[in-house]
């Protein structure tokens, strides 16, 4: 179970990587494993403004459909179009090529509400019980 140190995590199993005010968002290794083989990904439109907690997209596996939520408020600047034809990339590389959305943050202070890698590790340990 990979939980990279340099990322922040939400309770809905999204990860955030910040660089120059831009947040890259995806779902965690734990999430992709729980979902199973991902067959379809619905992403937002570039330019959409999404508030923290709102639905940014949908991830569909063979057995379930899961909403993906916005961990930090912002405007979508880029979406990973590769996922349209290769949704399985999220299973293969959830923190790398399986990134979903990049958004320009409006309220960077919201990052403080997210968990560190250590806190997330503890969180999923309790989820498993």
């Amino acid at each position: 179970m990979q939980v990279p140190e340099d990322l922040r995590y939400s309770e809905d199993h999204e990860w955030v990587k910040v660089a120059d005010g831009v947040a890259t968002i995806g779902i965690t290794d734990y999430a992709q494993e729980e979902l199973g083989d991902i067959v379809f990904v619905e992403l937002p439109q570039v330019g959409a403004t999404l508030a923290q907690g709102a639905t940014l997209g949908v991830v569909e596996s063979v057995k379930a459909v899961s909403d993906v939520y916005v961990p930090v408020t912002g405007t979508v600047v880029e979406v990973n179009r590769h996922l349209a034809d290769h949704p399985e990339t999220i299973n293969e590389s959830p923190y790398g090529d399986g990134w979903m959305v990049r958004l320009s943050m409006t309220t960077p202070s919201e990052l403080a509400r997210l968990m560190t890698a250590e806190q997330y590790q503890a969180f999923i340990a309790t989820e498993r019980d």
Partner: protein
Amino acid sequence: MRFTPHTAAEVQAMLGAIGAPSVAALFAHVPAALRATAALRLPAGIDECGVREELAALAGANRSGDGLVFLGAGAYPHFVPAAVEQLAGRAEFATAYTPYQPEVSQGTLQATFEFQSAIAALTGMEVANASMYDGASAAAEAVLMAQRLRPDRTAVVLSRALHPQYRQVIATYLEGVGDVEIVTVAYGEGGTTALPSTAVLERASCLVLGSPNVFGAIEDLAAAAAAAHAGGGLLVNVTTEALALALLRTPGACGVDIAVAEGQSLGLPLSYGGPGLGLFASRQSFLRSLPGRLVGETVDASGRRGFVLTLATREQHIRRERATSNICTNHGLCALQATIYMALLGRRGLGVLAERNLRGAHALAERLAGLGRLRFAAPYFNEFVLQVPDARRRWEAALGRGVVAGLPLADWYPELEDCLLVCATEVHDTAAHDRLVAALGGTA
């Protein structure tokens, strides 16, 4: 799967297994005031002879089609070969359960896959679902699908020449959606839809036409598609007489985005109004927004071909309130009958039958030209509007002579007071035509 009820011994064994004293005890948590105490008031059972007599009396109250009923208007008289019922009635098909378990449902699933393939070919569309209840609900589902695909639109445009009961069903379905305006556009002098302006279409998720429409007239679907697309919306085509699809340029070839139809003409008896068969076909790119069941072809773990229900994530048992529809069924046995019918006639046979319908209806219209005139100039398939003086009185007189001379249109279109909607299919031979002409002309 057996359908025998439990024996008393089996009930006792089950109660013992779960540790319950009695069946009544299982309902003990339901408040006493809500528990039914009276026994069901059913009459005593009667023997087989008695049942036959009672049902015969009921059936005797109906007038059955005897070749002298020239009614279409959404339900069409066609000949159904005996083989259709014989094959569909086989126990393996008639008692098969919903194919959620593919490993025990390959027969049902393969038949449904063949059905989907046939409907896709018939409509010229890329994908067809496993069927819906009937043409009207299929039309309503098509409108809902268009709204999902164009969520920023606040209106749907319906042609007034689309069957009025279909329009009522669409309105009913849209009531639940809210904030979607129904804009009705008129039909022109020729009997086809007067296409709305781009300004109107730019507000709408879809334009919905019937073709052939309620007057039997064939619409210019290509022009309608161009108009709808120019407005950024979709074109939905509704065909109440599915046999027409075998002869006319397919909806797919005309640029239709969602093609729906009533499949009753394809091997289903009229049966006093049902069950029907909703045909639903669309573009491959809209696949994830498609309502209804979908059967897919795949391979199993050993590499053998098999069939399964697929893309189930569109359906409510997975996506719940965000599913593409609340339907969780299809009209399996009806779809099977249609598939057998289409297989028996074949691609060429369906075309020959359709042509016979076309010629018969046109010949009849010519015969009736002495009595009245064709109200609309648009080309038609097997149904047309006859304008004749004193239409209602003549219709009633004809009925008295045992002939149902079509449908008096004034009930649905008050402005078409002196008009009868007449349908003639392969079941109406020359003698039947003679009887109609005589009955309407008052010379029978």
